[in-house]
């Protein structure tokens, strides 16, 4: 839901909810072990669990600064 809120807010953000068991190849590639897991720009950043918006925002900033 938070990811979708961010997508709605920013034209730069796309947010895709992925049903992990239907797409095991992708889940394996990003080493999904617990859900929800948020992967940023194909692995540039990762957040495990449901986190507050400032925390996801920080990880997004860290991931795109790379």
């Amino acid at each position, binding site marked *: 839901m938070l990811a979708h809120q961010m997508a*709605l807010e920013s034209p*730069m953000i796309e*947010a*895709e909810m992925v049903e992990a068991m239907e797409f095991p190849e992708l889940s394996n590639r990003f080493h999904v072990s617990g859900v929800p897991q948020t992967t940023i720009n194909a692995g540039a950043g990762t957040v495990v669990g449901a986190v507050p918006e400032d925390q996801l925002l920080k990880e997004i900033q860290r991931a795109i600064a790379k």
Partner: protein
Amino acid sequence: MTEKMLNDDITRQVTEFFQQLQEPVEVLYFGRKDDCDYCDDTRLLLEELVETSDKLALNTYDLDDDAGLAEQYRVDKAPGIVIAGRDGDQILDYGIRYSGIPAGSEFSSLINTMVLVSSRDSGLDPQTRQVLAGLKKPVHLQVFVTPT
């Protein structure tokens, strides 16, 4: 008679929940004919959902037959769902997607996201909005979830 995806009780609750819908919401569904275990169920689920409110509309596409459109919306999985807005003839794509069947707890996420899109307001903190407004690079968030 085919089995319904949503029973009468759920349909009633969803209909009531969708009273909060404000602006039109356009759902784009992309399925695939072969090798897609959850496509039919997902399409049926969406068909039943959009029946519960006149603010909701569904367009059904095929990932292969409508490859150009799928590319335009960057949908590469089936079932793939785009939850967009509509303003007259224009589809407002906010980059909101579901890949896979939105069942179980994801069903609740789906109907909440529809209400979110219909509000056209993210509801995020002012500080978050400020930082997001300054984003210079595209960000693709993929949130892995399971239906339970």
